């Protein structure tokens, strides 16, 4: 007699095609979260407003007053994130291909470089780049100074490179072996196989995690404030010290947070949408 009552054994339950969807999924970022953030900013602003003396400028007006400066700083964050992503990808793709090279010295050294930069704290890499890279380079007879933000960008590009390298390696290895075999039987060389068969299929698989990495990189750019780059985080500190009003502290940082959210939120949405689309195929 087979028990027909409730059971925890999946095999005893009737098969339900939709059952997989009952597995709890991680909550994804949506517009609600933005609204909560905005509400937090309003409440914090309100509380601070109440704390402020009547003679002083209102909190909202203060935030608006500093918005152009904050925007300038934020533009530097975005510029650094773009550049670091471009540099990291440009070096990370060949490094990832190096990890699957047939030549064992190339494979081993690519693996080593990847592991070192992937498993180091970003802040440590940043400090290293700030301290080790020269503050000026000689081109011909003239000296060109290397600005701090450029060195910091390079420092951020290193972990990005290592992560892209792992993305490439993982994507290539996720392609079924049959694709390699079929290409070999069709007399493609290894390089032709990679270029025409394997990598085009990898691009699709790599795009969502690559966008995810970009979002992580963007929210990591305020780290550069520690090494003195005047991006949005540094400027927020400067603004706060010049205003000298402690009640500004919470609304100001929340305001900055909102900027990052508004920028990264569409990226997160697009990543999820792409993942969903590629899953179906």
């Amino acid at each position, binding site marked *: 007699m087979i028990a027909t009552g409730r059971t925890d054994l999946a095999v005893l339950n009737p098969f339900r095609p939709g059952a997989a969807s009952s597995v709890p999924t991680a909550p994804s970022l949506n517009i609600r979260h933005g609204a909560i953030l905005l509400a937090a900013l309003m409440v914090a602003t309100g509380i601070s407003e109440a704390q402020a003396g009547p003679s002083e400028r209102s909190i909202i007006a203060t935030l608006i007053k500093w918005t152009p400066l904050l925007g300038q700083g934020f533009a530097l964050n975005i510029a650094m994130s773009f550049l670091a992503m471009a540099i990291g990808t440009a070096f990370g793709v060949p490094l990832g291909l190096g990890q699957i090279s047939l030549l064992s010295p190339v494979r081993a050294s690519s693996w080593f470089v990847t592991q070192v930069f992937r498993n180091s704290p970003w802040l440590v890499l940043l400090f290293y780049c700030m301290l080790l890279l020269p503050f000026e380079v000689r081109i011909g007879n003239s000296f060109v100074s290397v600005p701090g933000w450029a060195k910091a960008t390079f420092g951020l590009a290193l972990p990005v490179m290592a992560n892209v390298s792992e993305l490439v390696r993982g994507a290539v290895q996720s392609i079924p072996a*049959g*694709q390699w*075999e*079929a290409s070999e*039987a*069709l*007399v493609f060389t290894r390089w032709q196989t990679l270029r*025409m068969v394997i990598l085009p299929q990898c691009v699709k698989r790599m795009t969502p995690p690559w966008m995810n990495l970009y979002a992580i990189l963007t929210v990591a750019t305020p780290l550069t404030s520690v090494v003195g780059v005047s991006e949005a985080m540094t400027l927020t500190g400067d603004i706060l010290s010049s205003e000298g009003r402690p009640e500004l502290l919470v609304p100001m940082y929340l305001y900055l947070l909102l900027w990052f959210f508004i920028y990264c939120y569409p990226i997160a949405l697009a990543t999820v949408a792409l993942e969903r689309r590629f899953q179906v*195929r």
Partner: protein
Amino acid sequence: MGWTPDQPLIRMRDVHKTFGALTILNGISLDVMKGEVICIIGPSGAGKSTLLRCINALVPIDRGSILVAGQEVHDAKLDKLALRRKVGMVFQQYNLFPHRTALDNIMMAPIHVLKRDRAEVDARARALMRKVRLDGKEDFYPGQLSGGQQQRVAIARSLAMQPEAMLFDEVTGALDPETVKEVLLTIRELAEEGMTCVIVTHEMGFAREVADQIYFTDRGVVIEHGPPVEFFTQCRDERTRQFLSQIL
């Protein structure tokens, strides 16, 4: 080079292959004449797929010799690419390139490997699509085709390289029963046109109709072989009889 049509196009002698401690091929010998169709049957794990992969050097052998058109396949000096051009292969899992259309799948190798003119390749690819009865599906992606249709595209893709012999590795193994027929029909037509075929299959009825020779392999050796009628009616070996009684 030294090969004349009265000699076997594919000639295997005492081929051995081990993967670690596992012996896959334990002294295989067989001859395939030009235009001949041979079917290799046998229980799973008998090394049938490995045998095929050795013929076009996808898998290196440990010992023995394989001659294709008089050339030693596992000669280190041999240009493997030149060899593979002579021998086409079709796989159980089709292995079409999912990011390219059916027509592109067929055209890629002739254009990039044989360096043929695109217009000429295009015309020939379309002719091949008609040959495997898939005209009208040229711009479909593999994911939009049924298993049987994908397998026929894979056959056309292999034919586009104008091989002298074709290897079929359980090409109907992953297919629905309804689509098996259309794939077998395509292979039979090829055989009738005089293409040299080495077919690993579990379709006994098909093997009986299409093969000139049937080889029964088990545990890495050829147990016995012969023309189909003889093979199926008066096989001598006990293992062959047992296998056939399980399958027929």
